[in-house]
């Protein structure tokens, strides 16, 4: 195995869960998310020489996943999936937590993409607001507003108003 392939393998192993979950929340379809991530990673492999700064690898791969998803579904009407029918096994957690997660997933899926995407990038991928702004081509204030509104909508809908009392923070 070459060094280049080993380096790419390490990147894939480290970042695949985040890339998959990001792709999943772009369309809420596991099959499509898997296809998008596979194709995006193969594109990344072919272009691996263009990655000069390894500290930028995560942002680079997320950009490729985002573009791959957009490329596939440009002009396509979204396919709405009944999240209740999806088998998202939560075997590692108690049944109560799994039920709560299923309810929350349904609410997250109902968020507008403009609110959902920054939230996923912050919570799942761990990007800073500056990194999210760069990836989504937004300014930081817009990212903060969307993050705030995403949380406020979710907390309102789950009837647990933990963010609402900070209504004036932005």
């Amino acid at each position: 195995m070459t060094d280049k392939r080993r380096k790419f393998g390490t990147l894939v192993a480290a970042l695949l869960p985040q890339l998959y979950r990001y792709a999943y929340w772009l369309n809420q379809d596991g099959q499509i998310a898997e296809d998008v991530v596979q194709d995006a990673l193969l594109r990344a492999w072919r272009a691996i020489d263009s990655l000069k700064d390894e500290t930028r690898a995560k942002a680079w791969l997320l950009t490729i996943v985002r573009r791959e998803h957009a490329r596939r579904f440009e002009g396509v009407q979204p396919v709405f999936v009944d999240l209740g029918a999806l088998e998202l096994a939560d075997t590692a957690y108690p049944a109560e937590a799994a039920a709560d997660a299923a309810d929350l997933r349904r609410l997250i899926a109902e968020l507008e993409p403009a609110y959902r995407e920054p939230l996923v990038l912050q919570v799942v991928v761990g990007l800073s607001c500056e990194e999210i702004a760069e990836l989504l081509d937004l300014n930081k204030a817009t990212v903060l507003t969307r993050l705030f509104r995403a949380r406020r909508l979710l907390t309102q809908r789950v009837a647990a108003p933990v963010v609402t009392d900070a209504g004036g923070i932005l």
Partner: protein
Amino acid sequence: MNCLEYRRTLLERPTDPGSGAREHQLACRACADWTTQQQRFEQRLAYALSVPVPEGVAERVMLHAAWRSPRPHWQTIAATVAAVTLGALLAIQLADQPVLAQSVLTHVYDEPDLLIPGSEPVDPARLKAVLERVGGTLDGTIGSVLHAGLCPVGGKLAAHLVVAGEHGPIAVLVMPEYGVATNTAVGDDKLHGAIVPVGRGSVAVIGFRGESLDVLAERVRTQLSIADHGA
């Protein structure tokens, strides 16, 4: 740091708000209580967003990467020149073809990786799942299926299968949203094939010139069905 700044900081950096925020939290009861609720919600949120990741994706990517080496610079240039030339020729040759035939050929050329031989057969369960998403059912076998994925063809969802042929991969596009009355020929100087009516939709079978597609097209026509109401 006041309460407003504290809560803004927590929104911006929920997992690592910094020492200034921690000092405020210790000094302000209201913000301490708010933070407890907020952290509880963040845990629920993180758990809900962390959907299970399918097994084997990384292995499949590395398997493909093993036989698709990054191209040297000169090859990239050559490939680009070839693609532009091919695209121009294709545009001229397709000028008189039906719109669907153009969409089908364009889609096949848009997925150049799938025209390269050398992959392993896909898991039958995956093939079944992909077909189900477009309302398709396979009764029997159409050959060694090397790829099964979902793609937009002309803006409509389709299943893109790749079947091993004698002279290279053969693209089979299952298109529930496009009905055709009769077999419709598709081709240019490199690829040829047909769009075959199947149920309420159609299936395109496209291979390299020189590849005999009649047997596969017949298998597709007789063994593949598309339900009236696909996914």
